[in-house]
């Protein structure tokens, strides 16, 4: 509705200042200007034409005047009658356009009023209208002539007056017509349009207002305009209402979503293809700490699994499917370790949704359950199943971590302790022996209670027989110490150990165990309290140690 307040260019702005903005004023002014221009044009043309016509008319009148007096002039000339000539001249001079009269008879001048020489600027035939005068009794004979001098000033004045009159009439007519046209245009066009414009300006779409349509205007263009504008307004109102409802529904939905996001236990986040976080929910921050903020790289937060995270994102992008992994991560600021489950789903070309759940508790429970399954409840050492699993893992095909030794240990005289002092004393002995094993071996070694009083120790990274013997000796020594079984009593047991070395290839847990067993039986046969080494599958070397 508003015209722009600034128009480019100073001259245009200056000009725009002169032209009124209102359509009513502008049309009226236009009509007025047009009328003035037309009036001026017509006036100029009319005055030019009127002046020329008036000039001709006056000249013709002089001619007629001459004709009127011709017969009398003829008599005066015929008679050489100066008095008569003077009479005629006096009569003619009563016409204001006649500036002078000259009547001659032959060579004689009967009468002349002309004293001054005619203005040389004026046309001769207009200045002096001369006519030959014939005898009243003989049309053949010329008896004199009459010359009429025409007053230029008078002709000018008369024609000017006439043309002024014409201009005045024309101006009046043009003014009336212009006023009438302006009034009609105002009544029929500009006022209704201005009314519509003003109404539109005040209109508030929300209120469902409409522009009023005047009766009797329904059929014309302005009525059509109003009807169309009203149709547009109602459509706009409908669209606005629909949009408002949609926005409301969307707001509710968004609020619900936000609630879900905020209250969820799972960290929900959006990533770009580089793994940079674009947005995340509070749960994510709760899981990973305050450094988990938009802009950070997920790979850094899930250290040391940056490469894994990148690979998962890439896989998800390539397959357009969800990819997940359980990762044990180092929490920032030394908060220890935690287990998270990461699931990445592709949202768009370079956008991913990631879910990060804290599964530390579950993992711990799992680990505990696994521990429970693989540990001997009495001694806390690996049970047979756990030891077998370790052994199988270490001897898995294609895996070779270097030389490895297996000690098969059998307690000596344990059965008599059990029989003499009961199972409770036996259990105490077994627990004490387990501590001895733990003290004797390196941290990287595995100890298993294979059943009853049988134990096995796996020594990975053992390079020479001597070191293995050293460990075996330290075990035998430790076990041989008296063991307190309560009530001030103590017992002594011993250990017989079979040592076998794993072959770099083609070794299976069963064969290694079997060779260690053979070596252990040899140690028993050789008198107990000693270790026997079988270095290769073929040869079994006997090594005895003092009990």
């Amino acid at each position, binding site marked *: 509705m508003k015209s722009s307040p600034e128009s480019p260019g100073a001259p245009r702005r200056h000009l725009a200042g002169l032209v009124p903005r209102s359509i009513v004023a502008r049309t009226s002014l236009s009509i007025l200007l047009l009328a003035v221009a037309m009036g001026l044009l017509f006036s100029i043309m009319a005055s030019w034409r009127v002046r020329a016509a008036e000039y001709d008319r006056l000249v013709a009148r002089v001619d007629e005047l001459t004709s009127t007096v011709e017969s009398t002039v003829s008599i005066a000339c*015929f*008679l050489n*009658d*100066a*008095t*008569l000539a003077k*009479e005629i001249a006096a009569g003619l001079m009563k016409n204001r356009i006649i500036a002078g009269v000259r009547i001659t008879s032959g060579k004689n001048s009967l009468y002349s009023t002309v004293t001054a020489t005619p203005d040389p600027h004026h046309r001769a035939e207009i200045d002096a209208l001369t006519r030959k005068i014939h005898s*009243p009794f*003989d049309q053949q004979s010329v008896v004199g002539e009459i010359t009429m001098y025409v007053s230029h000033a008078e002709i000018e004045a008369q024609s000017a007056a006439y043309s002024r009159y014409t201009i005045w009439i024309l101006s009046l007519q043009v003014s009336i017509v212009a006023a009438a046209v302006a009034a009609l245009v105002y009544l029929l066009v500009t006022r209704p349009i201005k009314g519509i414009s003003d109404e539109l300006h005040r209109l508030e779409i929300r209120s469902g207002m409409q522009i009023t349509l005047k009766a009797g205007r329904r059929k014309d263009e302005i009525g059509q305009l109003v009807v169309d504008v009203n149709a547009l307004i109602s459509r706009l109102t409908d669209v606005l209402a629909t949009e408002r409802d949609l926005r409301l529904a969307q707001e509710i939905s968004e609020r619900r979503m936000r609630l879900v996001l905020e209250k969820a236990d799972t960290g929900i986040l959006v990533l770009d293809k580089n793994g940079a976080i674009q947005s995340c929910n509070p749960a994510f921050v709760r899981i990973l700490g305050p450094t988990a903020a938009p802009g950070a790289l997920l790979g850094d937060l899930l250290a040391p699994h940056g490469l894994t995270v990148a690979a998962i994102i890439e896989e998800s992008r390539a397959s357009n499917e969800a990819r997940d992994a359980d990762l044990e991560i180092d929490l920032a600021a030394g908060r220890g370790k935690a287990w998270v489950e990461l699931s990445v789903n592709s949202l768009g070309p370079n956008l991913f949704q990631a879910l990060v759940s804290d599964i530390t508790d579950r993992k711990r429970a799992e680990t505990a359950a696994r521990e429970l399954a693989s540990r001997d409840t009495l001694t806390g050492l690996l049970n047979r199943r756990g030891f077998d699993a370790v052994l199988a893992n270490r001897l898995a095909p294609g895996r070779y971590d270097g030389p490895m030794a297996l000690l098969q240990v059998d307690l000596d005289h344990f059965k008599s302790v059990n029989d003499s002092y009961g199972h409770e004393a036996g259990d105490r002995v077994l627990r004490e022996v387990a501590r001895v094993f733990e003290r004797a071996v390196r941290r990287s070694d595995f100890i298993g209670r294979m059943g009853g009083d049988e134990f096995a120790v796996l020594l990975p990274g053992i390079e020479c027989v001597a070191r293995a013997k050293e460990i075996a000796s330290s075990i035998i020594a430790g076990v041989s110490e008296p063991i307190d079984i309560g009530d001030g009593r103590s017992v002594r047991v011993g250990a017989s150990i079979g040592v076998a070395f794993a072959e770099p290839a083609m070794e299976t847990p069963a064969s290694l165990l079997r060779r260690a067993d053979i070596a252990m039986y040899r140690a028993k046969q050789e008198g107990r309290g000693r270790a026997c080494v079988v270095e290769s599958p073929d040869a079994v070397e006997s090594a005895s140690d003092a009990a």
Partner: protein
Amino acid sequence: MRRIACLLVLVALSPGFSNANDAAELVVIVNPDSGIDRLTRDEVIDIFLGRYRKLPSGRAALPIDVSEPSTERARFYQLLVKKSSAEISSYWARLVFSGQTSPPFQVPDAKTAVELVQSNPNAIAYVDRASVTGHVKVVLEIKP
């Protein structure tokens, strides 16, 4: 035959015929002492209509009109300038104001005119040829 005789009588009684009969030749006469023998038609017009009041001999001229109801005046001006008697009267009426010229001297009949011409060497008049006496001189014959 009787019918033809009747027609002839009617023709003889008609005005045209009588005019022709009356239109005996008009002549312009002057006093023998006037010193002129002939006058042209234009000279006669000039003298009678007031342009010149002098005879070619230099003597002043006194034109004489035979006034109504005699027919000479009408016939004279009709033949001379193709104007009716009324037109000639109107002509002179216009000139009354200026007073420079005056109409010809009016006499009641041809006889008086002839006597005036006999007695005045300046006089000039027109009469039927039949009225001409031996004491006047014919200077112009005006033929229809």
